Protein backbone atom coordinates (compact mmCIF):
# COMPACT_ATOMS: atom_id res chain seq x y z
CA UNK A 1 0.00 0.00 0.00
CA UNK A 2 2.74 2.38 1.05
CA UNK A 3 4.69 1.44 -2.05
CA UNK A 4 1.74 2.20 -4.29
CA UNK A 5 1.36 5.59 -2.62
CA UNK A 6 5.03 6.40 -3.18
CA UNK A 7 4.71 5.23 -6.75
CA UNK A 8 1.80 7.60 -7.41
CA UNK A 9 3.56 10.53 -5.71
CA UNK A 10 6.68 10.01 -7.80
CA UNK A 11 4.67 9.80 -11.02
CA UNK A 12 2.88 13.01 -10.04
CA UNK A 13 6.15 14.84 -9.32
CA UNK A 14 7.70 13.65 -12.56
CA UNK A 15 4.68 14.63 -14.61
CA UNK A 16 4.38 18.02 -12.94
CA UNK A 17 8.08 18.76 -13.45
CA UNK A 18 7.87 17.73 -17.08
CA UNK A 19 4.79 19.89 -17.63
CA UNK A 20 6.48 22.93 -16.12
CA UNK A 21 9.72 22.50 -18.08
CA UNK A 22 7.93 21.66 -21.33
CA UNK A 23 5.53 24.59 -21.22
CA UNK A 24 8.39 26.86 -20.14
CA UNK A 25 10.44 25.81 -23.14
CA UNK A 26 7.54 26.30 -25.56
CA UNK A 27 6.82 29.73 -24.05
CA UNK A 28 10.48 30.70 -24.43
CA UNK A 29 10.67 29.61 -28.06
CA UNK A 30 7.35 31.36 -28.76
CA UNK A 31 8.42 34.67 -27.22
CA UNK A 32 11.53 34.62 -29.40
CA UNK A 33 9.48 34.07 -32.59
CA UNK A 34 11.88 31.49 -34.01
CA UNK A 35 9.29 29.27 -35.70
CA UNK A 36 7.50 32.18 -37.46
CA UNK A 37 10.92 33.48 -38.52
CA UNK A 38 11.94 30.17 -40.10
CA UNK A 39 8.56 29.81 -41.81
CA UNK A 40 8.90 33.34 -43.17
CA UNK A 41 12.36 32.55 -44.57
CA UNK A 42 11.15 29.58 -46.59
CA UNK A 43 7.66 31.04 -47.21
CA UNK A 44 6.13 27.98 -45.59
CA UNK A 45 3.49 29.28 -43.21
CA UNK A 46 1.23 26.34 -44.04
CA UNK A 47 3.77 23.94 -42.46
CA UNK A 48 3.84 25.75 -39.15
CA UNK A 49 2.04 22.95 -37.30
CA UNK A 50 4.68 20.52 -38.58
CA UNK A 51 7.42 22.76 -37.20
CA UNK A 52 5.68 22.78 -33.83
CA UNK A 53 5.50 18.99 -33.91
CA UNK A 54 9.20 18.85 -34.82
CA UNK A 55 10.01 20.91 -31.73
CA UNK A 56 7.90 18.69 -29.51
CA UNK A 57 9.10 15.38 -30.93
CA UNK A 58 12.70 16.59 -30.75
CA UNK A 59 12.38 17.58 -27.10
CA UNK A 60 10.67 14.35 -26.06
CA UNK A 61 12.91 11.96 -28.00
CA UNK A 62 16.18 13.64 -26.99
CA UNK A 63 15.03 13.57 -23.36
CA UNK A 64 14.33 9.87 -23.71
CA UNK A 65 17.69 9.04 -25.37
CA UNK A 66 19.51 11.10 -22.74
CA UNK A 67 17.78 9.55 -19.72
CA UNK A 68 17.86 5.98 -21.02
CA UNK A 69 21.42 6.32 -22.27
CA UNK A 70 20.48 4.99 -25.69
CA UNK A 71 23.75 4.58 -27.61
CA UNK A 72 23.55 4.44 -31.42
CA UNK A 73 27.13 3.43 -32.32
CA UNK A 74 27.12 5.54 -35.49
CA UNK A 75 30.23 6.86 -37.32
CA UNK A 76 31.58 10.04 -35.74
CA UNK A 77 31.27 12.23 -38.87
CA UNK A 78 27.49 12.26 -38.31
CA UNK A 79 28.09 14.52 -35.33
CA UNK A 80 29.15 17.20 -37.84
CA UNK A 81 25.51 17.31 -39.02
CA UNK A 82 24.06 17.33 -35.50
CA UNK A 83 26.58 19.99 -34.43
CA UNK A 84 25.74 22.24 -37.38
CA UNK A 85 22.01 22.08 -36.78
CA UNK A 86 22.43 22.62 -33.04
CA UNK A 87 24.66 25.61 -33.78
CA UNK A 88 22.17 27.16 -36.20
CA UNK A 89 19.45 26.85 -33.59
CA UNK A 90 21.57 28.40 -30.85
CA UNK A 91 22.58 31.17 -33.27
CA UNK A 92 18.93 31.93 -33.92
CA UNK A 93 18.28 31.95 -30.17
CA UNK A 94 21.14 34.40 -29.67
CA UNK A 95 19.94 36.59 -32.52
CA UNK A 96 16.40 36.62 -31.18
CA UNK A 97 17.58 37.48 -27.67
CA UNK A 98 19.66 40.39 -28.97
CA UNK A 99 16.62 41.61 -30.84
CA UNK A 100 14.36 41.38 -27.79
CA UNK A 101 16.84 43.54 -25.89
CA UNK A 102 16.76 46.23 -28.62
CA UNK A 103 20.56 46.54 -28.70
CA UNK A 104 20.99 47.32 -32.36
CA UNK A 105 18.14 49.84 -32.85
CA UNK A 106 19.35 51.82 -29.84
CA UNK A 107 22.92 51.80 -31.10
CA UNK A 108 21.77 52.89 -34.53
CA UNK A 109 19.69 55.75 -33.21
CA UNK A 110 21.84 56.98 -30.32
CA UNK A 111 25.20 56.78 -32.04
CA UNK A 112 23.87 57.86 -35.42
CA UNK A 113 25.03 54.61 -37.02
CA UNK A 114 21.96 53.48 -38.94
CA UNK A 115 23.89 53.21 -42.21
CA UNK A 116 26.55 50.84 -40.80
CA UNK A 117 24.12 48.62 -38.91
CA UNK A 118 24.92 45.63 -41.15
CA UNK A 119 28.61 45.93 -40.30
CA UNK A 120 27.70 46.00 -36.60
CA UNK A 121 25.47 42.97 -37.02
CA UNK A 122 28.39 41.16 -38.65
CA UNK A 123 30.53 42.13 -35.64
CA UNK A 124 28.13 40.20 -33.43
CA UNK A 125 28.01 37.24 -35.82
CA UNK A 126 31.80 36.95 -36.07
CA UNK A 127 32.09 37.60 -32.35
CA UNK A 128 29.83 34.65 -31.63
CA UNK A 129 31.75 32.34 -34.00
CA UNK A 130 35.11 33.46 -32.64
CA UNK A 131 33.97 33.24 -29.02
CA UNK A 132 32.56 29.78 -29.52
CA UNK A 133 35.64 28.48 -31.36
CA UNK A 134 37.89 30.02 -28.69
CA UNK A 135 35.83 28.31 -26.02
CA UNK A 136 36.21 24.84 -27.54
CA UNK A 137 39.70 25.05 -29.03
CA UNK A 138 41.66 27.05 -26.47
CA UNK A 139 39.69 27.72 -23.30
CA UNK A 140 38.48 24.18 -22.49
CA UNK A 141 41.67 22.20 -23.39
CA UNK A 142 43.80 24.49 -21.20
Amino acid at each position, binding site marked *: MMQLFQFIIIIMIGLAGGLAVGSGMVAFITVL*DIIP*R*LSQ*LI*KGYQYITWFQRALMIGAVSFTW*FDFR*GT*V*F*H*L*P*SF*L*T*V*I*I*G*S*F*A*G*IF*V*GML*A*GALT*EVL*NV*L*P*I*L*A*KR*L*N*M*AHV*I*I*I*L*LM*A*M*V*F*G*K*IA*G*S*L*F*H*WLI*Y*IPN
Partner: protein
Amino acid sequence: MSQDAVYLRLRNRYFVNPNSKVLLGEIAQIIAPEQHEKALKRLFIYQINKEDEHLVVIDSMHIIKKLTEHFPQLHIESIGSPQIIVEIIPSSTKKKPHAIAVAFVWIILFVGSGLAIMNFHHDVSMEEVHKRIYYLITGIHKKDPLILQIPYSLGIGLGMILFFNHVFKKKINEEPSPLEVEMFLYQQNLDQYVVLNENEQNRKKKQ
Protein backbone atom coordinates in the same frame (compact mmCIF):
# COMPACT_ATOMS: atom_id res chain seq x y z
CA MET B 1 -19.76 74.83 -49.23
CA SER B 2 -18.30 71.66 -50.68
CA GLN B 3 -16.56 73.67 -53.40
CA ASP B 4 -14.50 75.46 -50.78
CA ALA B 5 -13.43 72.36 -48.89
CA VAL B 6 -9.75 71.91 -48.15
CA TYR B 7 -8.47 68.43 -47.39
CA LEU B 8 -5.40 68.37 -45.26
CA ARG B 9 -3.19 65.40 -44.49
CA LEU B 10 -0.12 65.86 -42.33
CA ARG B 11 3.00 63.92 -43.25
CA ASN B 12 4.63 61.73 -40.62
CA ARG B 13 7.89 63.52 -40.21
CA TYR B 14 9.71 66.43 -41.75
CA PHE B 15 13.37 67.47 -41.60
CA VAL B 16 14.41 71.13 -41.55
CA ASN B 17 17.52 73.20 -41.12
CA PRO B 18 17.77 75.37 -37.97
CA ASN B 19 16.12 78.80 -38.10
CA SER B 20 14.09 78.03 -41.18
CA LYS B 21 10.42 78.69 -41.76
CA VAL B 22 7.98 75.83 -41.94
CA LEU B 23 5.38 76.25 -44.68
CA LEU B 24 2.12 74.34 -44.95
CA GLY B 25 2.98 72.79 -48.32
CA GLU B 26 6.07 71.18 -46.80
CA ILE B 27 4.41 69.40 -43.90
CA ALA B 28 1.08 68.42 -45.41
CA GLN B 29 -0.57 67.08 -48.52
CA ILE B 30 -3.35 69.40 -49.59
CA ILE B 31 -6.36 69.09 -51.83
CA ALA B 32 -7.99 72.48 -52.30
CA PRO B 33 -9.84 74.59 -54.88
CA GLU B 34 -7.34 75.60 -57.57
CA GLN B 35 -7.44 79.32 -56.96
CA HIS B 36 -6.34 78.84 -53.34
CA GLU B 37 -3.90 75.99 -53.71
CA LYS B 38 -0.71 77.99 -54.24
CA ALA B 39 -1.48 80.43 -51.45
CA LEU B 40 -2.28 77.56 -49.11
CA LYS B 41 0.95 75.76 -49.83
CA ARG B 42 2.93 78.90 -49.09
CA LEU B 43 1.08 79.61 -45.85
CA PHE B 44 3.58 80.24 -43.07
CA ILE B 45 3.06 77.86 -40.15
CA TYR B 46 5.99 77.98 -37.79
CA GLN B 47 9.34 79.70 -37.33
CA ILE B 48 12.04 77.37 -35.99
CA ASN B 49 13.92 79.15 -33.21
CA LYS B 50 16.81 78.29 -30.91
CA GLU B 51 14.61 77.06 -28.08
CA ASP B 52 13.32 74.15 -30.14
CA GLU B 53 16.34 71.97 -29.66
CA HIS B 54 15.93 68.88 -31.80
CA LEU B 55 12.25 68.47 -32.38
CA VAL B 56 9.07 70.46 -32.69
CA VAL B 57 5.66 68.90 -32.67
CA ILE B 58 3.18 70.88 -34.74
CA ASP B 59 -0.40 70.10 -33.88
CA SER B 60 -3.12 70.13 -36.50
CA MET B 61 -5.11 72.45 -34.21
CA HIS B 62 -2.40 75.05 -34.64
CA ILE B 63 -2.51 74.62 -38.41
CA ILE B 64 -6.29 74.83 -38.58
CA LYS B 65 -6.20 77.99 -36.48
CA LYS B 66 -3.75 79.59 -38.90
CA LEU B 67 -5.83 78.48 -41.86
CA THR B 68 -9.09 79.89 -40.50
CA GLU B 69 -7.34 83.20 -39.79
CA HIS B 70 -6.11 83.55 -43.36
CA PHE B 71 -8.85 81.77 -45.28
CA PRO B 72 -12.06 82.15 -43.26
CA GLN B 73 -14.20 81.18 -46.26
CA LEU B 74 -12.66 77.70 -46.55
CA HIS B 75 -13.96 74.59 -44.91
CA ILE B 76 -11.09 72.47 -43.57
CA GLU B 77 -11.11 68.72 -43.36
CA SER B 78 -8.11 67.27 -41.57
CA ILE B 79 -7.49 63.62 -42.33
CA GLY B 80 -4.61 61.46 -41.17
CA SER B 81 -2.39 61.98 -38.15
CA PRO B 82 -3.25 64.87 -35.82
CA GLN B 83 0.33 66.11 -35.48
CA ILE B 84 3.66 66.15 -37.26
CA ILE B 85 7.14 65.81 -35.82
CA VAL B 86 9.53 68.31 -37.31
CA GLU B 87 13.11 67.27 -36.78
CA ILE B 88 15.71 70.02 -36.75
CA ILE B 89 19.03 68.93 -38.19
CA PRO B 90 21.97 71.23 -37.52
CA SER B 91 24.47 71.05 -40.35
CA SER B 92 27.14 69.73 -37.94
CA THR B 93 25.32 66.48 -37.11
CA LYS B 94 24.58 65.72 -40.74
CA LYS B 95 27.95 64.10 -41.28
CA LYS B 96 28.37 60.42 -40.63
CA PRO B 97 30.06 59.14 -37.46
CA HIS B 98 33.81 58.82 -37.54
CA ALA B 99 35.29 55.55 -38.78
CA ILE B 100 37.11 55.15 -35.45
CA ALA B 101 33.81 55.41 -33.58
CA VAL B 102 32.32 52.75 -35.82
CA ALA B 103 35.38 50.55 -35.29
CA PHE B 104 35.07 51.07 -31.54
CA VAL B 105 31.44 49.98 -31.47
CA TRP B 106 32.32 47.09 -33.77
CA ILE B 107 34.94 45.82 -31.32
CA ILE B 108 32.57 46.21 -28.35
CA LEU B 109 29.95 44.12 -30.10
CA PHE B 110 32.50 41.57 -31.34
CA VAL B 111 34.15 40.98 -27.96
CA GLY B 112 30.88 41.29 -26.08
CA SER B 113 28.99 38.74 -28.11
CA GLY B 114 31.97 36.38 -27.99
CA LEU B 115 32.06 36.65 -24.20
CA ALA B 116 28.29 36.25 -24.01
CA ILE B 117 28.35 32.98 -25.95
CA MET B 118 31.13 31.62 -23.69
CA ASN B 119 29.12 32.56 -20.63
CA PHE B 120 26.10 30.88 -22.14
CA HIS B 121 28.04 27.67 -22.82
CA HIS B 122 29.23 27.56 -19.22
CA ASP B 123 25.83 28.46 -17.87
CA VAL B 124 24.09 25.56 -19.58
CA SER B 125 27.03 23.09 -19.27
CA MET B 126 27.31 22.88 -23.04
CA GLU B 127 30.61 21.00 -22.76
CA GLU B 128 28.98 18.12 -20.85
CA VAL B 129 26.06 18.07 -23.26
CA HIS B 130 28.36 17.92 -26.29
CA LYS B 131 30.34 15.04 -24.76
CA ARG B 132 27.09 13.27 -23.96
CA ILE B 133 25.70 13.74 -27.50
CA TYR B 134 28.98 12.50 -28.96
CA TYR B 135 28.87 9.43 -26.72
CA LEU B 136 25.22 8.68 -27.46
CA ILE B 137 25.79 8.84 -31.22
CA THR B 138 29.13 7.05 -31.54
CA GLY B 139 29.40 5.04 -28.34
CA ILE B 140 32.88 6.48 -27.75
CA HIS B 141 33.80 8.60 -24.73
CA LYS B 142 35.84 11.55 -26.01
CA LYS B 143 37.22 14.41 -23.95
CA ASP B 144 37.04 17.02 -26.71
CA PRO B 145 34.51 16.15 -29.44
CA LEU B 146 35.81 18.89 -31.79
CA ILE B 147 34.17 17.21 -34.79
CA LEU B 148 30.86 18.20 -33.18
CA GLN B 149 31.93 21.51 -31.70
CA ILE B 150 33.50 23.24 -34.72
CA PRO B 151 30.44 22.80 -36.97
CA TYR B 152 28.35 23.88 -33.99
CA SER B 153 30.34 27.11 -33.68
CA LEU B 154 30.00 27.92 -37.38
CA GLY B 155 26.32 27.07 -37.15
CA ILE B 156 25.82 29.77 -34.50
CA GLY B 157 26.95 32.42 -37.00
CA LEU B 158 24.77 30.95 -39.74
CA GLY B 159 21.77 30.89 -37.43
CA MET B 160 22.17 34.57 -36.55
CA ILE B 161 22.47 35.49 -40.21
CA LEU B 162 19.34 33.48 -40.99
CA PHE B 163 17.47 35.17 -38.17
CA PHE B 164 18.39 38.65 -39.31
CA ASN B 165 17.91 37.76 -42.99
CA HIS B 166 21.18 39.19 -44.19
CA VAL B 167 24.16 37.64 -45.88
CA PHE B 168 26.20 40.81 -45.71
CA LYS B 169 24.20 43.19 -47.85
CA LYS B 170 22.29 40.60 -49.80
CA LYS B 171 18.84 39.79 -48.54
CA ILE B 172 17.59 36.23 -48.63
CA ASN B 173 14.07 37.36 -49.43
CA GLU B 174 12.02 40.51 -49.89
CA GLU B 175 10.19 40.70 -46.57
CA PRO B 176 11.58 43.02 -43.89
CA SER B 177 13.90 41.35 -41.41
CA PRO B 178 13.12 41.38 -37.66
CA LEU B 179 15.86 43.97 -37.22
CA GLU B 180 14.20 46.34 -39.69
CA VAL B 181 10.83 45.81 -38.02
CA GLU B 182 12.44 46.38 -34.62
CA MET B 183 14.09 49.62 -35.79
CA PHE B 184 10.73 50.78 -37.12
CA LEU B 185 8.93 49.94 -33.85
CA TYR B 186 11.62 51.66 -31.80
CA GLN B 187 11.29 54.81 -33.91
CA GLN B 188 7.52 54.64 -33.62
CA ASN B 189 7.69 54.41 -29.83
CA LEU B 190 10.06 57.38 -29.69
CA ASP B 191 7.70 59.36 -31.93
CA GLN B 192 4.71 58.53 -29.79
CA TYR B 193 6.55 59.68 -26.68
CA VAL B 194 7.65 62.88 -28.34
CA VAL B 195 4.19 63.64 -29.68
CA LEU B 196 2.63 63.31 -26.24
CA ASN B 197 5.30 65.11 -24.23
CA GLU B 198 6.64 67.84 -26.48
CA ASN B 199 3.16 68.75 -27.55
CA GLU B 200 2.02 69.43 -24.01
CA GLN B 201 5.06 71.58 -23.34
CA ASN B 202 4.33 73.61 -26.44
CA ARG B 203 0.84 74.29 -25.28
CA LYS B 204 2.05 75.39 -21.86
CA LYS B 205 4.51 77.82 -23.40
CA LYS B 206 1.83 79.47 -25.43
CA GLN B 207 -0.54 80.08 -22.54
